[in-house]
């Protein structure tokens, strides 16, 4: 088994007096897809945002693709270097509103990574092709539907060829039809060498698509393992209760 591309040790994070992450450990290998599940407020999005320093964790260590930092004394330079090994797909897409679809994708390449313009455009168009948005490369975000914007959001992340790709509830703002489209698109990335960490409420997707599933509650990882173990035989009472509705719904399809 290959070495982990992302390693988190004992990550803590508080907002004021509220401790929202109470010692998280995680290892993700290249190409692996990890689904982060849990009820709202359990800390899963905060944890994801700590991985690219959109939130500053209070303590712990983080290693991505060979670079390790102690989170309580991460310097600007370390943060920038680590961020450039990752990319993120947002719940509300977060496309730059002043830039076209193509510029949205090239921005991180040319400005943050110093890729020459022509090369960046080629890479961007390839990513946009992959998500089926190449035809709209000159459009501005406000001219696109939510589903289309999220496709661009995914292309923007893919073009960076990150070691770790972070998805923060990528389908939570979409209508049910578009949810399926975007999930299919994410599913199609399964065999890429990029490690994927997905915060999601789409249980069926996590079950089918993830290599490992993590269940978080109150700032801790309660359960971790292959989807069929976590869904089929949750060890923890809290996990069982959270998954109950889903497993009761889907049991005939998945568990018999």
């Amino acid at each position, binding site marked *: 088994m290959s070495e982990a591309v992302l390693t988190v040790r004992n990550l803590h994070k508080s907002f004021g007096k509220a401790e929202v992450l109470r010692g998280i450990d995680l290892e993700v290998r290249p190409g692996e897809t990890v689904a982060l599940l849990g009820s709202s407020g359990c800390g899963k999005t905060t944890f994801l945002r700590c991985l*690219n*320093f*959109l939130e500053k964790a209070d303590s712990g260590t983080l290693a991505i693709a060979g670079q390790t930092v102690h989170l309580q004394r991460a310097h600007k330079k370390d943060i*920038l270097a680590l*961020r*450039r090994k*990752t*990319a*993120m797909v*947002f719940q*509300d*897409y*977060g*496309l*730059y*509103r*002043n*830039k076209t679809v193509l510029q949205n994708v090239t*921005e*991180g390449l040319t*400005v*943050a*990574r110093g890729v020459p313009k022509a090369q960046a455009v080629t890479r961007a168009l390839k990513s946009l092709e992959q998500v089926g948005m190449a035809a709209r490369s000159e459009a*501005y*975000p*406000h001219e696109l539907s939510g589903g289309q914007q999220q496709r661009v959001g995914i292309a*923007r992340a893919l073009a*960076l060829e990150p070691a770790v790709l*972070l998805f923060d509830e990528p389908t939570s703002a979409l209508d049910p039809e578009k949810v399926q489209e975007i999930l299919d698109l994410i599913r199609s990335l399964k065999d890429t060498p990029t490690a994927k960490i997905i915060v999601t409420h789409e249980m069926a997707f996590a079950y089918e698509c993830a290599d490992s599933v993590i269940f978080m509650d109150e700032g801790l990882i309660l359960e971790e393992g292959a989807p069929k173990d976590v869904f089929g035989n949750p060890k923890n009472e809290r996990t069982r209760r959270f998954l109950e509705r889903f497993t009761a719904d889907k049991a005939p399809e998945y568990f018999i």
Partner: protein
Amino acid sequence: MDFAFLWTALQAAAARIPATLSLAFVPFAAGILVGLPTALVRRSSLPVLPNVLAGLVALIKGIPVVLMMLVFFVLASETFDGFMQSLGLPWTFRELDKSLVAGAALTVYATAAMCEVFRGALAAVPQSQYDAAYAAGLTGAQTLRRIILPQMVAPALPMTCNILVALVKSAAIASLVSVVDVMNGAVIAAAGNYRFLEAYIAAALVYWALCLLIENIFRLAEKKCARRFAV
């Protein structure tokens, strides 16, 4: 109504348009240059400084421009000569171009006003834009220059237009400190015949035309912004 004199006064007022415009645009430009960094610092998490600046802006906002200008004038008249002497410079307050004093007061006003405009425009850019830029590996400066500032233009335009129009009109107060602007130009023309009503109407017509022009230029800019990207 003496229409012949109205025409004369109108010409006298129009001849002073450059004085009024420089009294409006120089403080306006300075207001943008100082107001923008002030707004950025106020939004930052630096210690103390944001609060100090917020207090200063609140203080300035609460003082009428006319009062500020008169205070500047009195202060300058009392201290300028002594200050220049101590520096060994030959300049005196009597020879000092009083539009500098008026301009200084208008600059203070414009800076506070533009700071508030930029603060509003900054708040109009959602946090997700910062998140997306940082996540892509852009530095703080790159994020500001390439993502945030361009998005502040559209929300800032309507209020910026208001401030500029207010400055053009406030420049009339400079006539109080013996600057010959549009207002004073018209009034001086009436000094011989006491036809002040015509002079005031002439000045009003010139201000009205200037403000209309500015508002239309801004309207065009707003349209252009809206076409490019809706915010």
